[in-house]
């Protein structure tokens, strides 16, 4: 356990203070949001050389605001706060978020944060897959100012995020979707407190004729180094009406976009098969919300 090498714990009261700390400690700094994955990472030897733990609870990153453009979620909003928000509770568009937040146990929901979850860039997490299907943008602050990046630019690789040195996540933005849009998320796990073997999020819009438009199909778990979208599956759905045959083709298209891995949880073959099955089930669930 290398956390015992940390010699300092800071709780900066403003962005400037945080930026100075990040500059001073460089790779020796670990930003702690909820902190729910820190010990898990440490137990796996993934946190080496940590000198300073930097707690961002005092930066006021708790906003949960909704306007015509979309929903802004502060980095320090917990899973519990998010799932209890009016919009997540009631919106069919955000069904995937609601579904994803069903899975973690209570003690995790009360502590884990949206910002920490995204910044971890863990392919086995659930919210990144759900957010990927919702065109999420990540709001970032650095010494050069603020910038937004598309979520897929944030999820660079296995535990590698798209932050530059000295940057931190301040929030997440979910843009508005067309009318008649719904999303859903399904996770395959070995027991009720598990990382995903495979997870899938689907967002689908229907036009006046009842055809699928602008679908988003995102898959995560052990299917790649990050959660990814399946452009093949999305193309298959475009302009089509739902049928068993369509679902079959969508499932096969998803498989063509993945390079799943084999590990002690599951084989690549199983993950591939489940990506197909879960995509079909998530699609049916999303459509059932319209």
């Amino acid at each position: 356990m290398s956390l015992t090498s940390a010699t300092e714990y800071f709780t900066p009261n403003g962005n400037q203070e945080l930026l100075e700390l990040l500059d001073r400690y460089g790779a020796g700094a670990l930003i702690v949001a909820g902190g729910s994955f820190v010990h898990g990472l440490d137990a796996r030897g993934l946190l080496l050389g940590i000198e300073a733990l930097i707690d961002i609870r005092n930066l006021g990153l708790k906003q949960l605001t909704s306007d015509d453009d979309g929903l802004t979620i502060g980095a320090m909003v917990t899973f519990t706060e998010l799932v209890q928000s009016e919009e997540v509770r009631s919106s069919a568009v955000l069904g995937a978020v609601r579904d994803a937040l069903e899975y973690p146990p209570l003690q995790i929901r009360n502590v884990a944060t949206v910002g920490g979850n995204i910044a971890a860039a863990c392919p086995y997490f659930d919210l990144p897959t759900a957010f990927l299907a919702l065109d999420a943008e990540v709001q970032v602050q650095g010494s050069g100012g603020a910038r937004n990046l598309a979520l897929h630019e944030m999820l660079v690789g296995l535990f590698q995020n798209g932050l530059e040195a000295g940057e931190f996540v301040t929030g997440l933005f979910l843009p508005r979707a067309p009318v008649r849009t719904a999303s859903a998320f399904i996770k395959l796990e070995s027991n009720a407190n598990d990382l995903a073997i495979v997870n899938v999020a689907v967002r689908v819009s229907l036009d006046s004729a009842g055809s699928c438009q602008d679908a988003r199909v995102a898959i995560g778990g052990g299917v790649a180094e990050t959660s990814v979208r399946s452009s093949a599956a999305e193309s298959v759905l475009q302009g089509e009406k739902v049928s068993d045959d369509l679902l079959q083709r969508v499932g096969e298209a998803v498989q063509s976009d993945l390079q799943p891995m084999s590990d002690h949880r599951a084989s690549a073959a199983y993950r591939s098969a489940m990506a197909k099955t879960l995509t079909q089930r998530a699609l049916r669930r999303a459509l059932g919300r319209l």
Partner: protein
Amino acid sequence: MTNTSVVGKSVLRPDAFEKVRGGKGFPVNVSLPGMLHAKLLRSPYPHARVVSIDASAAEALPGVKAVLLPKDVPQIKFCPVFFVPTLAPSMIQDMLVMSDTVRYAGQPVAAVAATSAEIAEQALEFIEVEYEELPTVFTTEAAMGEGAPQLHADAPNNIAKNPVFEFGDLEAGFADADHIFEGTYKTQRVHTCYMEPRVCVVDSDADGRLTVHSSMQHMFGLREKLAFVLDLPESMVKVVKPPYIGGGFGGKLDMGYIEPVAALLSLKTGRPVRIEQTRYEDFITTTRNPIEVYLKTGVKSDGTFTARYARSTLDCGAHATHGAEVIMVHGMFGILLPYRCANQTWEGRTVYTNNMIGGGYRGYGSPQGAFAVESQIDEICEALNLDPIEFRLKNAHQQGDPHPFNPEFTLSTYRFEDCLKTGAERIDFARRAAAGSTEGVRKRGIGLGCQALWVSGCMGFPDIYEHSGAIIKLNPDGTANLSNATVDMGSGQITTLCQIAAEELGLRADQVRMTYADSETVPFDAPSHASRVTYSAGTAVKAAAANAKQRVLEVAAVMLEEGVDNLEVRDGHVHVKGSERKLSIAEVATRAESPFVQMTAEGPKPTTIGEKGTILGVSSMAPPSNPSPASVEFVEVEVDTETGEVSILRVVFAHDIGKVINPSAAEGQVEGGFQQGMGYALMENIQFDQETGACLTSDFLDYKMPTAVEMNFPIESIFIESDEPTGPFGAKSLSEPCTTVPAPAIANAIYNAVGVRIRELPITPEKILAALGKL
């Protein structure tokens, strides 16, 4: 059956009141003044020679008080298993507390004691170890094969033990068969997952006497083993009995490295030393041994067994430890003896590899056997269109038969048939459809698994300790203290023994209190294991209570001026039979401890010597027999044929354990045992990197066991009571079959649901999909 007023009731557990408020008594809470904390340095290599160790930099760190290296440790080979003498011939003494030969990844090579656990852990990084890596073997096949590295000098082909049992004429039996069935069944390595980590605090005094606190299942076993490896007389080692421990299940049935290391560090520093294992360390401490079973079985067309051949290969890892005994119990109670067959041969092999070592775990070789045997019975019934209940009854032992393992005992109570029939009726076993025949994506099935023969303790087993003792002392307020060495690991041992004592003494259960004990104050007791406490320790407790009761009656006889035979105890009183005259037990106990001559208003009151003295009852004795419980489980499952996921819908468990002492506690054993058996069947698996030997599943995120969500189904416990003549108030023992029967029942239910047979545990969703041809 005798009428009882305390036994047979679901009395509340006395320890529960304390546990819901925090639970002070767990060994993890022990803290002594001046205590140091120690950590073990573990080898990253699975097979290596330690060429050199330099701990000088670690020793120089502020806060580090002592370092322990292999050269500081007596090189005394031992077997760590608690329930046998250390040098028992049927076991293998191949372990050292610290060695410069490493045989599995995680084996300790050094230790540091410091003023805090953090400093001790940091100090480990300053110990320089030079290893010479050696070739490795991770499968029993490779280990027994040509050119495999020899892991222990006296075990050619890495075979530690190779028992063979032959009965009758196997060849003739197969010749007589109408059908022959063969199959290979594999089980995996799993962990007991006790929630309280292994932890100990060892203190020493200037004379070198040790006092040991540890989360373990056997006080006397720990004393014996610890004294042995330190080359001390046992009287120099005192083990304190914890009020209770946070789970054991057989995973704390042997001496780990932590107790002797803590002892040596304490002797070196003159201070108490504490070692608490991390969850990773617990995962690589001891496990249930994987066993591969090949079965070849001959039957007549009507299902009668004519011949049975089995070969079992057990992977014991780096040291034999429990593997030398698990293979025997597996062979006897898992394979050969549950059913009758005149012609049987079984060959067992316990094989060394560079995998982690095994320990005890509820069932002790019988789950691995039951999975194989009960699955194959199901296969035979399917192939020959035979009823699974009738098949088992055709081949079952009968009540009154000589005990198959201990012929000097009999199956005095054995209601296997009633268990089968009652359970089948309760779940309506007859309603199951032909295997895999139902429509729809989600398919349901019902399966059956049995443990037709088991034990109530270890009476009659070669080399295994089996006797218990107890001291009962009456207090002037009419309550009783019970002091005995039985460790309560959660199964309700305290409650059960207090109920038995209370019933015998005519007290309420809450008037008997389990109290302090250590290895210096109480008679020897075998461990809390082998489903023995109710039957064996219960017998001893009942005997001690009977002795105390006799004293109560003798004193009361003087007080009431009656003959002892005219008196009886009940409701906290001594009653004159057929009369209203009575005395409270409190009055009797007070009189016995009151001054010899008492002053009263009328002057000094005469008394007799015979009345005076604390009322005590003591026993130390072996139980009279080893009666077999009978256990049968029916499980209904639903399989999602698109994902392979299995949901359990319903469980019915029918069990003959004689008289049930505490129904609620007995149900708890069934329900908890099912969680373990279900995990074994469907998801649990300790996995290792096949190149490096590193553990891949050493926390609860990676090692999957059932949560409350997976257990969303009813579990019905049907207790088919019998009156075991040799047991306390008619009781036999409980516990292990609850973990043994779920896996075969679930496997057979899955077959009934989807028509595919999987002969390897765990039966994961992926395996089901692959068997359905969908991957």
